[in-house]
């Protein structure tokens, strides 16, 4: 993809990795300004190298809450023209506008950024669900419209990302002006694919956002499995395939986050053998059914959708993940200090085990895992 080559101004598609992740959900539903995510992410500046940062925010478009919001990037005017025509052929566009940005030192040659609030045209849905219809068109745009790219496509959420450091991308997109109850954020240190605007994290499809640190060495088999189920992997990156795997398991096959986690980071066979019989039977069946979606290699991800956030690391924890609870807010991050920075005095922090999901849901008070909840808090 020519776009990829033009935006990696360092020409270094392959350097070592240590991306920074941060996310939080206020399970009471209260909205918080983007400055929290920005401050936390910027404290982990060393984890990235300026080749990509981004933010996903939920609850930010209450006035359009029932419409799909498509955040799009276009490399040139012609691409935007074609994309505009395409969207109006397949959606009723209720409102559209440029995504507000400001000129920012160090942000070079940004693409044209636009957002559409739209509803699918029922006459064209042909028996598909709304969500499947949206996925279909996002895939078509990303594979066939040269120079156009859909960044996020969910309701009442949006993804803001690009090539730059966390503070630069935040300033550019005016992140502090948004208020959401759930935020995830990413500071990129690209490894196997170049830094470019569309390749920054979070990755999105429908209201999913995925931020990822690490490297999925099972990419080939994961990708083939996603493609068998109708997903077009256009970006040659493991995070993209992870996003589609999440959509397949958690939306289409309706697995709860905890079971999807057991697919992505299944216990080792010798650990399965030690589990109580019912749990062992369940996890063995999942492993047998969804073996091709086992994510091998070092990774930590934060996955989010409306009302739900999950942090998950690989089964032998080759990438860091820490979690914390303060009041109704659940935090997850690559580094503990970032949580303490935005939640001063936080008393309940822990290190999840590899493969142990940390899940926060609207309306559910987050709780410490059973294995450590009996301990006295380390600090007050």
């Amino acid at each position: 993809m020519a776009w990829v080559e033009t935006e990696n101004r360092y020409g270094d598609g392959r350097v070592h990795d240590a991306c920074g992740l941060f996310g939080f959900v206020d399970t009471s539903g209260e909205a918080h300004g983007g400055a929290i995510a920005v401050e936390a992410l910027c404290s982990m500046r060393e984890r990235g190298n300026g080749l990509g940062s981004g933010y996903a925010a939920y609850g930010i478009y209450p006035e359009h809450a029932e419409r799909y919001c498509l955040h799009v990037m276009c490399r040139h005017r012609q691409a935007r023209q074609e994309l505009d025509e395409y969207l109006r052929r397949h959606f009723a566009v209720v409102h559209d506008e440029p995504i507000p940005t400001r000129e920012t030192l160090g942000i070079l040659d940004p693409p044209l950024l636009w957002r559409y609030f739209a509803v699918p045209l029922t006459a064209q849905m042909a028996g598909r669900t709304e969500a499947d219809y949206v996925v279909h068109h996002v895939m078509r745009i990303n594979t066939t419209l040269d120079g156009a790219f859909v960044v996020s496509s969910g309701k009442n959420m949006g993804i803001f990302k690009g090539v730059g450091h966390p503070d630069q991308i935040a300033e550019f997109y005016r992140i502090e002006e948004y208020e959401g109850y759930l935020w995830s954020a990413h500071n990129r240190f690209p490894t196997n694919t170049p830094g470019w605007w569309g390749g920054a994290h979070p990755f999105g499809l429908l209201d999913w956002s995925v931020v990822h640190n690490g490297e999925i060495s099972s990419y080939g088999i994961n990708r083939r499995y996603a493609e068998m189920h109708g997903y077009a992997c256009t970006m040659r990156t493991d995070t993209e395939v992870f996003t589609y795997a999440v959509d397949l398991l958690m939306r289409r096959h309706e697995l709860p986050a905890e079971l999807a986690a057991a697919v992505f980071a299944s216990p080792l066979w010798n650990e399965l053998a030690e589990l109580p019989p019912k749990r062992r039977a369940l996890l063995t069946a999942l492993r047998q059914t969804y073996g091709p979606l086992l994510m091998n290699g070092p990774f930590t991800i934060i996955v989010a959708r409306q009302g739900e956030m999950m942090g998950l690391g690989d089964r032998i924890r080759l990438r860091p993940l820490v979690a914390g609870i303060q009041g109704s807010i659940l935090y997850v991050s690559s580094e503990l200090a970032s949580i303490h920075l935005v939640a001063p005095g936080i008393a309940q922090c822990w290190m999840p085990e590899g493969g142990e999901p940390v899940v926060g849901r609207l309306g559910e008070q987050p709780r410490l895992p059973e294995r450590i909840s009996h301990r006295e808090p380390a600090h007050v």
Partner: protein
Amino acid sequence: MSSSETSPAQVQPKREKVVRMDARGLAYRALNAQLDRAFAEGATSAHLERVHGQRYIGTNLQRQVRIDIHGVPGNDLGAFMDGPEIHVHNDAQDGCGNTMNSGLLAIHGSAGDIVGHSMRGGSVFVRDDVGYRVGIHMKAYENVRPTVVIGGTAQHFLGEYMAGGVLLVLGRWLPSEAIHPARYVGTGMHGGAIYLRGRPNEAFLGREVGLAPLTLDDHALIEGSSRDSTSSLSSK
């Protein structure tokens, strides 16, 4: 300078010079540069306030000085250090004491993954829990032996590829007779000793290690190390 020319009577008692620094908003390079300058100018100890994830604090520091850290320090705290005493009055992150040569790192809380990574000497004492792969690649040489004492429990792959030194896990949260939660203990280990309080999970021991009853020497070592740890962690 030749030490033989200085008789004990001529040595002046060392005067304490304490510096305080507010780390809020400082990038790690700036903070570490300030710290280096203070010690070069004769400070004997430094109090760092409002630390929030700055990396490499005390890295490669080769002086008999003390650093007190308030807030959460970043990764690779005290890496390569040779001599200092560092106290963290909170939790710490990953890579504490990475390849340290000598000195003392006291974490008055929990620490993250790979505590004591490739450590060659000195002591790391952690009051509470630690993450994965603690003591990975620790090594000893002649009479130089690194020691890591954990007051709480450790997560998995404790002592991975360990080549020397001592890892002591006191498990103070654990009920007696409980199975220690650490799995894959000593995977790839080929030297040194790990002392675990509680029953090790034998189904998940590293393939390269075996269990042995404590000898009198072991008892003495455990007693000495836990006493040192307790005294460092109870000092303020």
